[in-house]
């Protein structure tokens, strides 16, 4: 079950499949977040991206996010798939789907998931710009972890 809800893949991600994983007759609200490769970032042009993951740990961390969400928003269901490898402009890098009986929780839990992905899931993005390449880190501007590790809410 967990393996299906939380995946790292090197194949294109199918939106409909993610949604199907969280559909339930008692959940009238489903939100999805689709993160795509953006061409322009602060005036710099991206040609393509490469994502790398520490795969088994990344899957575990995605599942951890799912547990955090179920604790904070009872009766939600979450599925997350993150793609790795070579991605072109507009390719989908990540999809998060959340179902809930109530829409407020579906929005909040979904946004929580993407924030947490950027904090604790071992996935790295290498931007290939027009004029060079860089591994991107620290998007949330947490220059260091004061507690020595990302906060794991359990």
């Amino acid at each position: 079950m967990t393996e299906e809800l939380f995946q790292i893949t090197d194949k294109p991600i199918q939106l409909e499949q993610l949604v199907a994983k969280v559909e339930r007759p008692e959940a009238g609200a489903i939100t999805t977040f689709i993160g795509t490769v953006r061409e322009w970032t602060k005036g710099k042009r991206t040609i393509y991206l490469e994502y790398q993951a520490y795969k088994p740990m990344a899957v575990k961390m995605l599942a951890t996010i799912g547990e955090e969400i179920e604790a904070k928003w009872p009766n939600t269901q979450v599925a997350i798939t993150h793609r790795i490898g070579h991605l072109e402009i507009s390719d989908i890098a990540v999809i998060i789907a959340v179902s809930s009986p109530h829409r407020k929780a579906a929005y909040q839990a979904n946004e929580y998931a993407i924030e947490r992905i950027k904090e604790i899931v071992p996935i790295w993005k290498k931007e290939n710009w027009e004029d060079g390449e860089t591994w991107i880190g620290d998007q949330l501007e947490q220059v260091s972890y004061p507690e020595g590790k990302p906060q794991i809410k359990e």
Partner: protein
Amino acid sequence: MITVLLFAQLQEEAGNGRLELELVDTTVKELKETLQREYNLTKMDQVMVAINEEYALPDDRVKDGDIVALIPPVSGG
């Protein structure tokens, strides 16, 4: 023996994503210092360590057979 996994820029700096090390009993902090010195790794103050796929603290001990991953700031999503 322990296995060390490196990712992103650390992997490029070390020229390798996977190292096998003979190490006597050590801590996360000591291991990071050793690796930084021997492989000229940069920005190690921002690097997290996971032991067997769980985030570890600087004083946690690394033992024989562990898989240790160096985790620079993540940028998924």
